[in-house]
């Protein structure tokens, strides 16, 4: 194909993928707004809005340069290349913020979002996809991670784990006499809408990560990637639904949607490497992991109202290792040990750096609201705007 035509097509493709990924902004927002209680809905939506604005801005001003050195692309408009990369940064932070919903203060969490999007995440991108400051050291990563099972999902998950350890659980979630007090979701239709918006966004997230569509080979690679991405989501939903029914004799939609998302995270490391049937197994295992991980994190008293640890952290690790299991190809530098090394190096860096930054912020401005504010709800105290002022408050 003529070079200029390919340039235009790839630019268009990157912009299209960018727009699809931005659909994940309302995706996360609706999913989280539905899973929290009505008294905390505005605060969650405010956090999502701030993340999109601030994380994207920080990535424009600082983060992109840290990750990739400078603007520039030979195969498409450099501005399209930037926008596509910028679309990811908010997702990393969203994963972290969702899991500490209903008790984290907006302003200190936003300060962490700035550090995460300007420095922590760009450094992870740097060593995985970007200019690679670790090249020629013993830490140099050979990990294959097409769209970020580790780079995005696990990185966000490790930051969330650090945040949960520092902030603690919602009030009354783990009573002194043992067990778990269930805090049910307030709006299941919103959860469903959010889950499917995320699913749609994933087609741009993974498809766009192939990088080019302007040749027969690349067009096939993009289509295979999107097919495999979708298949993994289907398998995650089916397996988590079956397991929920076998275990509890009930079909919980919030778990089935989490299972679908778990499958989508699991496929994200290598959707272009698998045949069209392997994603059924990879996504299915992803869905199963969610069903087992959600109660496991509750046993550990790690309070995660939206299941982000189970979906993003657990499946980010599984998805990255799955590349080493199903698509190992030493001649291309893809090995299980290489994948494992990537998981471990990113885990150590993301968790420790997030913990230090969050710990420091927490000393300056406490990350958790007071008991009274938590009881009354974050909407009134943090935003002054209730999400559903005409409805009776649900306690």
């Amino acid at each position, binding site marked *: 194909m003529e070079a200029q035509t390919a340039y235009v097509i790839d630019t268009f493709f990157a912009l299209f993928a960018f727009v699809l990924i931005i659909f994940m902004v309302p995706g996360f927002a609706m999913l989280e707004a539905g899973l929290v209680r009505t008294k905390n809905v505005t605060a969650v939506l405010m956090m999502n809005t701030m993340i999109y604005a601030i994380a994207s801005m920080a990535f424009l001003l600082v983060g992109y340069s840290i990750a990739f050195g400078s603007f520039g692309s030979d195969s498409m408009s450099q501005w399209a290349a930037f926008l596509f990369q910028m679309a990811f940064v908010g997702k990393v932070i969203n994963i972290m913020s969702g899991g500490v919903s209903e008790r984290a203060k907006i302003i200190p969490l936003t300060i962490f979002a700035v550090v995460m999007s300007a420095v922590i995440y760009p450094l992870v991108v740097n060593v995985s996809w970007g200019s690679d400051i670790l090249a020629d050291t013993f830490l140099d990563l050979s990990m294959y991670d097409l769209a970020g099972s580790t780079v995005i999902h696990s990185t966000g998950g490790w930051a969330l784990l650090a945040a949960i350890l520092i902030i603690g659980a919602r009030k009354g979630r783990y009573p002194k006499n043992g067990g778990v007090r*269930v805090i*049910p979701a307030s709006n299941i239709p919103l959860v469903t809408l959010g889950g499917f918006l995320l699913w749609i966004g994933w087609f741009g997230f993974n498809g766009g990560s192939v990088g080019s569509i302007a040749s027969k080979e690349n067009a096939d690679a993009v289509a295979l990637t999107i097919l495999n991405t979708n298949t993994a989501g289907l398998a995650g939903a089916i397996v988590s639904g079956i397991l929920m029914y076998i275990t509890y004799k009930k079909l*919980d939609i919030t778990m089935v949607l989490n299972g679908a998302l778990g499958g989508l995270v699991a496929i994200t490391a290598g959707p272009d490497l698998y045949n069209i049937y392997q994603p059924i197994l990879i996504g299915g295992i992803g869905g199963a992991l969610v069903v087992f991980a*959600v*109660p496991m994190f*509750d046993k550990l008293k790690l309070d995660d109202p939206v*299941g982000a640890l189970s979906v993003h952290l657990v499946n980010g690790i599984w998805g990255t290792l799955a590349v080493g299991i199903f698509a190992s190809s030493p001649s291309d530098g893809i090995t299980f040990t290489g994948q494992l090394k990537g998981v471990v190096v990113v885990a150590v860096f993301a968790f420790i750096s997030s913990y230090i930054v969050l710990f420091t912020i927490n000393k300056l401005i406490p990350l958790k609201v007071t008991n009274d504010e938590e009881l009354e709800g974050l909407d009134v105290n943090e935003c002054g705007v209730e999400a559903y002022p005409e409805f009776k408050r649900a306690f």
Partner: protein
Amino acid sequence: MKRIEAVIKPFKLEDVKDALTEAGITGMTVSDVKGYGRQQGHSELYRGAEYVVDFLPKIKLDLVVSEEDVDKTVEIIANAAKTGKIGDGKIFVSPIERIVRIRTGEEDEEAI
């Protein structure tokens, strides 16, 4: 004058209202309430954890009738709200001292 309060299953409200209207007893105030008696709560499941919902949604009817209508009204409500299963609710009857119709200033029996 007696006040009749009836706590019933929400889906029985239409039946009770229709039966009362048919018998010529008009006017009532309805509120959404939650509660339990012998029925107690039921358990639900959320994300793999079971929890008990102690208070179940019910409807409370409030109406005031003259002495001669009391037995008839109670019987109509009891029949219309009955399913025979646990959780059908209760009817309470209590005396009323005074009634005022705000628009006209009519009092007591005239204001029912």
